[in-house]
């Protein structure tokens, strides 16, 4: 019981990392190689698209992160552990 409840905290950390990797993978689809020799205007347009995608993905990521943490805390408070369940201190 105790372990099952505790494991959700490390899972949050792993999920944060995994979603970050997915975000980086998505952004990488829009990344232009450094050596690419595009005209100035094309570079600005590509840069703007990259920035938009990055901000969008990171906003979604932070929102999901925030909601998950709040949901986890609420669920813990609604189902508190009694001292008899808490084996070792």
């Amino acid at each position, binding site marked *: 019981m105790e372990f099952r*409840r505790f494991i959700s905290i490390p899972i949050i950390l792993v999920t944060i*990392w995994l979603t970050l*990797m997915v975000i980086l993978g998505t952004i990488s689809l829009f990344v232009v190689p450094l050596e690419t020799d595009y005209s100035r205007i094309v570079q600005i347009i590509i840069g703007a698209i990259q920035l938009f995608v990055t901000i969008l993905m990171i906003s979604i990521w932070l929102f999901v992160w925030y909601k998950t943490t709040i949901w986890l*805390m609420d669920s813990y408070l609604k189902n508190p552990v009694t*001292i008899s369940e808490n084996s070792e201190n």
Partner: protein
Amino acid sequence: MHKLSRPEVPEMGGIAIFIGVFVSSLVYFIPNISSLTEGYDLIKDSTFDVRVTVFLISITIAFMIGLYDDIKPLNAAAKPVLLILASIPIIAFDAYSPNPVLPIIGPTRLTYFYIILVLFVVSIPANSVNMLDVFNGATSSTGIVLLISIILSVIIVNPEVEQLSFIFLIIGTLLGTLMAFHIFNRYPAKIFGGDSGSLTIGAGYGLLACLGQIEFIVVIALLPQIQNSFSILTSVKGIRERRQMSRPTKLREDGLLETTDSPEAPVTLTRLILGALGPSSEKKIVRIFGLLSILSGILAILSALLIRVV
């Protein structure tokens, strides 16, 4: 603070931390200074690394802000803003490279956007470390795990020799200092680091990330600290003074800590752990901080592998 006996413990151990970091960083200058006797120019010398100078100036600024905060507590918003000052030497000495390497993507070119990030490179980690510095040995034990995982990650990434020597200098100074401090700070603590200690250590992590060009690895290794500060800031909707917030935990008569059920209390990492495990001792919570640091260290190493693959 979290003990029924309320023992009196000296708080400004940050002075010892700062001296440890500062003096051991000076080791880097010894070969250069000795070579001066052979007509060597310290500044023109190609082995002279401006990043060490920037590290020393920035860490001193962060320490001074922490010291002031220990003596006369600063306003909640003033601390992160003042810590931006510690990032100024990085820009002033042009000691940064705006091309952070990310897993999957590889090297990036952030140019002007990176300068905006540099402004927060000390403030964010310093405040994150400061916010988790609530238990005996928490900062030192998590810091030791974090730095060891960064060493392993850096070996995997395999940067140039010059960069590697700088990274290992910074890690060496921070790790040596934290190991010595941990002897006195572990449960039951004989001394606390105070804000001067946690801000110095946190600033060290930020400077290591930026000047060593291992930004992503350090961010991942710092996940427990970032998770904690992110949860606090989002749950109380902004930066608040500790005194303005409800206490997230309470001390029971049997000496165990338990989470409060107040909806106004910030959602801290400690509160999440206590919510999950029920009433627990301070020692157990610090042990779990350590376990979470090991996990984030493993994630940092995995990130390094992904950087290497690209």
